[in-house]
């Protein structure tokens, strides 16, 4: 019985210690990030690796989701004679929710895992220790540029996702089904607000960028320096960042769109 209580206490303490550790790591990351602006070439390289090379998956996924959304919404709206609001439904779901969230989930899978594995292997190969020996802080040389690149890339990817999704929906709705194109665009222009909808979507994707990149870097930096450790850390990156993004999305949505 006492052993049971003991185990419970131990687990609680470990959980809080982990949380505190992650929080300190995150604060360090924030502290080193401005300095990486001075070595902007490193950030550009990382934006290329994280952002540009995620384009294919983001654009393909956005296009497919836009097409499917238009098709399904059309079937759902036609019985109510509301096919003209198809554009609005697709636009709002993409810009407010699907754009930021799905981009973040894909980003965690495509770029987050790469970050974790890269840094984990650096650690396993003792490259990080070597840097420290050369009086180079790996947090400012390796982590901070990646963090900044992730934060910059995520909103851009989310915007591209929404835009290509709307184009996909246009292709299906207007070209294939035959929804009136003027209606399709005009209902968006009259109902979608730049600040409230698009602006909040960008704020969301910015927050998700911080979460996904932060989790990926933390998992990579704190991985056990073994092949199994890196594999385990990569898995945790995807699971943790996905769960954090979904939970955060709920909170942000409740805060942003509660009064509209």
């Amino acid at each position: 019985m006492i052993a049971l209580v003991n185990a419970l206490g131990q687990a609680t303490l470990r959980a809080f210690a982990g949380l505190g550790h992650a929080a300190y790591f995150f604060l360090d990351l924030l502290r080193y990030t401005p300095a990486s602006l001075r070595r902007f070439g490193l950030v550009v390289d990382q934006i290329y690796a994280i952002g540009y090379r995620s384009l294919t998956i983001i654009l393909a996924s956005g296009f497919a989701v836009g097409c499917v959304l238009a098709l399904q919404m059309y079937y759902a709206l036609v019985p109510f004679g509301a096919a003209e609001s198809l554009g609005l439904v697709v636009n709002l779901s993409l810009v407010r929710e699907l754009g930021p969230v799905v981009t973040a989930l894909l980003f965690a899978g495509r770029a987050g895992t790469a970050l974790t594995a890269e840094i984990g292997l650096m650690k396993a190969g003792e490259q990080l220790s070597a840097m420290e020996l050369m009086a180079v802080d790996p947090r400012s040389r390796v982590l901070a540029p990646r963090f900044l690149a992730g934060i910059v890339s995520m909103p851009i990817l989310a915007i591209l996702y929404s835009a290509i999704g709307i184009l996909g929906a246009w292709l299906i709705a207007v070209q294939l089904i035959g929804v009136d194109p003027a209606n399709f665009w005009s209902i968006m222009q009259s109902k979608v607000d730049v600040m409230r909808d698009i602006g909040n979507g960008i704020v969301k994707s910015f927050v998700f960028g911080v979460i996904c990149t932060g989790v990926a870097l933390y998992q990579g930096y704190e991985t056990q320096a073994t092949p199994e450790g890196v594999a385990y850390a990569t898995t945790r990156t995807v699971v943790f960042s996905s769960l954090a993004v979904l939970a955060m999305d709920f909170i942000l949505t409740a805060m942003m769109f509660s009064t509209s």
Partner: protein
Amino acid sequence: MAKKSTETLVGVFVLLGIIALAFLALKAANLASFSAAKTYTVRARFDNIGGLKKNAPVRSAGVSVGQVTSITLDKNTYQGLVVMKINDTVMFPVDSSAKILTAGLLGDQYVGIEPGSDDKNLANGDLIKQTQSAVVLENLIGQLIFNKAADAGTAATTAPAPGASLAPVQQAASAAASGSNK
């Protein structure tokens, strides 16, 4: 050289993002409507604006010709003052009338303008005098019940003719339509 091409590709990436943002803001949101084609403003007072909202379309014969810019309560007459902007290319006679209509059964409400026959056209800042309020379902039902009760009082002695139960509905509808017509 490899460095150069990386920078170029990142530039392309950022540029794509900016283009997508411009597309979203201008084509798929309301940014373009802030600086759209030339418009002129007209006002109209309604006894009841129903569920009309800002940015609702203004239509004539079903064609969108403008937008509602503001809705306020007129402090003197206690009527809803609706300000709308109408495209410069479309002119309406001064005796045109404005109605608040509903798109479809469940759709949003919009302002419908029916052109009059006067020679002069509405100018910037003019007031549309003839208006018809939104149909409020509660008032319609209230009138129906009232009429029904009145009928029951007067026609208690005469047996109701078949099909008479439909008459109060029509009365109520026409009363609601003409009662608020100014």
